[in-house]
């Protein structure tokens, strides 16, 4: 029979405990196993400073405070601690307080929210924009608000959970196509020709760092009269000549119906947004529950985000630096013969393979040496491609990167050799 480490969170979704206030009985047994507990120690480790590239954690491995090079936080452009952003957030906090204290339709819309939404719409070259209090809520609310039972949402099989959950909540039929495969998308859409169809793509896929094949996939969507929704969570402010994302990178912004972004990654705040035509945004204000029934984003966060957008787009300094760092780091990983998959972005997977034992042994050793690089295990990624996911940042100095690369070499490459 399999032992505890053969199981994962994928195996305990179904809860048949007669007491609804308790998890499944076999889950409790599993989670108490010493090897499983060891793997779970990597979750929820506390950061003791801002998520800069040099930070400090309270390690769950030994309860030690430990200075670390941080390659896990997705503070890609360092905007969460940019001095101008922090100053703007402070000023907004003093003037408006901590909370919007209301849902947007009733009393939660401040001049600040209107200003950020207007600037984001202008930036994405769409008519209008809807701001959400979380990134997850943005996809959830947009898809739930747009689509209905009888409709079809076609998603890449590697879609983010927020996309899948939004599709589920909408009541539309969920159709998954093989990753980045226009032929499979066409085969799936062929079965639903007579339906209203939305094709949902991601600019950069978050576990692999590869880009969507937008030109080919958009051609298929057009052929079937489907709308295109693109999630640019990991690409906005970074891809394209003006940082507008992967749609700009491919010169295809006018073919995108809805452009989604998150405000917690490159923007350095928290929240989500969608940009689309004014008629759809107007309609969604009545039907997108995650928008309509959530308190509006916190004023100091919005104040900081307005400044973050300005800082990131007034010139290309930050994204240029990010790409220089990414190229440097990736070429060094490649020269060590490490597997970085089909990565094309600042998200670099470092693929270890099928062994969970190796993954956690490496994670432990690297953290003890001062590198905060979190393991990504099955079911988040396929069982034969367990990995680390490196998030590059414009804040990284060459010295930090060299230290991180040395640790990776000592721990992973030496073990392999």
């Amino acid at each position, binding site marked *: 029979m*399999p032992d505890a480490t*053969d*199981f994962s969170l994928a*195996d305990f*979704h*179904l809860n048949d405990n007669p007491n609804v206030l308790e998890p499944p009985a076999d889950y409790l047994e599993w989670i108490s196993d010493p090897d499983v507990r060891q793997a779970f120690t990597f979750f929820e480790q506390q950061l003791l400073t801002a998520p800069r590239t040099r930070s400090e954690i309270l390690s769950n491995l030994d309860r030690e405070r430990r200075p670390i090079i941080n390659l896990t936080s997705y503070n890609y452009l360092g905007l969460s601690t940019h001095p101008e952003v922090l100053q703007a957030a402070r000023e907004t906090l003093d003037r408006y307080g901590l909370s919007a204290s209301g849902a947007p339709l009733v009393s939660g819309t401040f001049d600040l929210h209107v200003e950020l939404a207007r600037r984001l719409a202008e930036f994405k070259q769409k008519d209008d924009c809807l701001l959400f209090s979380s990134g997850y809520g943005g996809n959830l609310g947009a898809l739930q608000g747009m689509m209905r039972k009888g409709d079809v949402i076609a998603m890449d099989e590697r879609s983010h959970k927020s996309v*899948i959950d939004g599709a*589920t909540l909408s009541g539309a039929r*969920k159709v998954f196509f093989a990753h980045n495969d226009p032929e499979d998308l066409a085969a799936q859409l062929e079965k639903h020709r007579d339906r209203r169809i939305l094709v949902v793509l991601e600019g950069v896929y978050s576990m692999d760092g590869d880009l969507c094949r937008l030109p080919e996939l958009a051609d298929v969507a057009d052929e079937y009269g489907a709308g295109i929704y693109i999630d640019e969570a990991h690409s906005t402010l970074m891809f394209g000549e003006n940082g507008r994302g992967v749609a700009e990178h491919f010169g295809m912004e006018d073919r995108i119906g809805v452009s989604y972004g998150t405000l917690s990654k490159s923007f350095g705040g928290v929240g989500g947004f969608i940009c689309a035509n004014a008629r759809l945004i107007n309609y969604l204000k009545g039907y997108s529950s995650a928008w309509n029934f959530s308190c509006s984003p916190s004023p100091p966060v919005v104040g900081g985000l307005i400044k973050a957008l300005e800082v990131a787009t007034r010139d290309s300094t930050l994204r240029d630096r990010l790409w220089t760092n990414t190229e440097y780091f990736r070429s060094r990983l490649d020269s060590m013969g490490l597997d970085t998959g089909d990565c094309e972005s600042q998200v670099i997977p470092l693929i270890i393979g099928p062994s969970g034992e190796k993954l956690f042994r490496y994670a432990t050793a690297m953290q003890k040496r001062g590198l905060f690089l979190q393991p990504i295990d099955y*079911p988040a990624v396929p069982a034969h491609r367990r990995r680390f996911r490196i998030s590059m940042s414009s804040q990284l100095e060459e010295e930090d990167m060299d230290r991180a690369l040395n640790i990776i070499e000592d721990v992973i490459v030496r073990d392999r050799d």
Partner: protein
Amino acid sequence: MTKEEVIEVIKRNIVENLDDVEADSIDATKSMKEYGANSLDMIEVVSTSMRELNIKIPRSELAELGNIDELADKFMEYINKG
């Protein structure tokens, strides 16, 4: 329990979880995908079938299976192990 009975359990759970599929029309040599199941539907069918059969197989062992018949074989392996 026979393999035929296991296949019946799987078929019944497919019918319960998918729209417009009837048990008689399901061919066990095909994948659930061919009856319109997405990956989430398949997890649901497998979980409810395993519950009914009182077995627990790690999801990672099921990833490579190609059709309903192979799934039934895997289930039988665990049923026979007791």
